[in-house]
């Protein structure tokens, strides 16, 4: 076989795809179907709380089409970063969806479930040996970061996927994965160059985002050859151009020439992008440089409290003029009343610097109205409720300089005015560790249906 064709149906499992594009992809007789389900983009909550940021119904829709097609064509279906963050509860959530599909479609399959959870003992061991290194600009980890983490995951490379492919998996459901792994695994397993395969995976993981007009909800096909790969769109409304493909290499990366991953780095200094026709772009020259020792990136999140927010608007020009005085006054009042409580109170002022915070270059505002989010975080939901409620009522009736409207300072769009947001998580590990064996952290469990 002189090439491996990989069908990437969608940028994130659950984001969907047109059936016509998927069928056009299947008509090209791909060797596998692969999908990335995850990201740290939505923030620490989903990893910390063990919940998916994608919708269950939407994930089931995508997966039922992919698995059915995979079984029909006798090609493997690879899913990475299950449930978005790829920890144990995410894996279990996604496994239940797959089991429903298996039952409903009366399928008989061999399923490999690869977990990516890293035990606290393992992380503490690495910390004690100085082998837990922060990825700049993340800070050094402390013991508490590890012991307080609700979930620690490692990003797996291609090796665990290859192991599962060797054993004949029809479907591979994996926890947290380096995004390109599931797209590159089959090609690397069959002896293709890892630099070519991984770079192809790097682009395929976002599916049609690398085409123009870009979309996270449409399919893309990658064909991996000995010394190059070709990307093509599967929807006549989209084109792959050298610019759309190379621009995607920039996306969410610090340095597009050097892309570090598990066990090594992709070097793009010699990479060339060539337009073959409207639908296809050829890429060659990317080199994979293995690292010694093999490193794996860890991610973890810990619960730091509970949040209550109140959303309000302001239309009074004198309030807007006196804003800083009011905010400081309210903070002071809350402090005076609840000195004994441990809490974090902040105000987001939309119309001023609600989006950019301290990075906002514009200091003088001319907004005729402002949006205010009163944001209280504390060790318990009750304390957060107390602080938010007190700050809200104080701001509502605050007597500021030049006040002319004495009935109330805030416009509340909702009753109740305060909303309990539940647990607040923080990323606490973004580190790499050395491993002896790329499979070490990623055990495979087999299920036959």
């Amino acid at each position, binding site marked *: 076989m002189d090439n491996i064709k990989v069908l990437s149906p969608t940028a994130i499992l659950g984001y969907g795809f047109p059936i016509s594009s998927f069928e056009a992809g299947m008509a090209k007789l791909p060797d596998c179907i692969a999908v990335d389900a995850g990201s*740290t*983009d*939505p*923030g*620490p*909550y989903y990893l910390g709380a063990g919940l998916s940021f994608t919708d269950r119904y939407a994930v089931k829709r995508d997966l039922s089409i992919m698995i059915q097609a995979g079984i029909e064509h006798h090609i493997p279906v690879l899913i990475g970063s299950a449930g978005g963050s790829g920890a144990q509860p995410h894996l279990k959530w996604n496994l239940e969806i797959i089991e429903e599909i298996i039952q409903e479609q009366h399928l008989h399959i061999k399923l490999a479930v690869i977990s990516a959870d890293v035990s606290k003992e393992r992380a503490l061991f690495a910390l004690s040996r100085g082998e837990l290194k922060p*990825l*700049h*600009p*993340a800070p050094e980890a402390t013991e508490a970061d590890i012991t307080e983490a609700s979930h620690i995951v490692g990003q797996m490379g291609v090796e665990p996927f290859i192991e599962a492919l060797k054993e004949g998996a029809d479907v591979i459901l994996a926890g947290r994965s380096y995004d390109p792994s599931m797209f590159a695994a089959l090609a690397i397993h069959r002896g293709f160059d890892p630099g070519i395969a991984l770079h192809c995976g790097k682009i395929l993981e976002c599916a049609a985002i690398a085409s123009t007009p870009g979309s996270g909800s449409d399919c893309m096909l990658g064909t991996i050859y000995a010394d190059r790969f070709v990307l093509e769109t599967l929807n006549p409304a989209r084109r792959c151009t*050298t*610019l759309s493909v*190379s*621009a995607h*290499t*920039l*996306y*969410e*990366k*610090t*340095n*597009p*020439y050097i892309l570090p991953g598990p066990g090594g780095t992709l070097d793009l200094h010699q*990479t*060339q*992008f060539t337009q073959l026709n409207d639908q296809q772009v050829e890429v060659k020259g990317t080199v994979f440089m293995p690292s010694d020792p093999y490193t794996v990136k860890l991610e973890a999140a810990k619960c*730091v409290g509970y949040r209550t927010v109140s959303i309000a608007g302001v239309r009074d020009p004198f309030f807007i003029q006196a804003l800083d005085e009011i905010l400081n006054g309210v903070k002071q009042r809350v402090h005076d009343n609840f000195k004994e409580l441990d809490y*974090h109170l*902040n105000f*987001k002022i939309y119309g001023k*610097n*609600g*989006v*950019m*915070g*301290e*990075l906002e*270059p514009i200091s003088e505002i001319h907004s005729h109205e402002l949006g205010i989010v009163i944001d209280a*975080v504390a060790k318990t939901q009750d304390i957060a409720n107390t602080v938010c409620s007190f700050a809200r009522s104080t701001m509502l009736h605050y007597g500021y300089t030049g006040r002319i409207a004495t009935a109330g300072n805030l416009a509340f769009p909702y009753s109740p005015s305060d909303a309990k947001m539940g647990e*607040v*998580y*923080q*990323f606490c590990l*973004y580190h790499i560790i050395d491993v002896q064996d790329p499979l070490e952290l990623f055990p495979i469990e087999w299920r036959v249906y």
Partner: protein
Amino acid sequence: MVKLLDLAKVIRSKNSGPYELTLDIILKDEESYRLLIEKQCITKDVIAKLYRIPVEDVINVIHFEPAHAIKATIVRPMCSGDLNETDVYGAQQHAPLLQLEFDL
């Protein structure tokens, strides 16, 4: 004065992992790309001044020829999702770049 907005077709910001914010400027053509590099229009100093951060917090400025792009990455004011966060995805931090203009 020439506005960056007139030379670029994409100006965007996004997290690069939870600790970094990366700013992409994709120019309309090779000529604009070369001109901005030659005249050193986008440098660590320019980005630091624009975002009012110490120049050490600008991790790099990279010229990426295949996409006619200039890319700057800065240290996020805080780790994504920390208390006081305003933009979890980092997708709305590009606006100051829209104001850039150069004497070319």
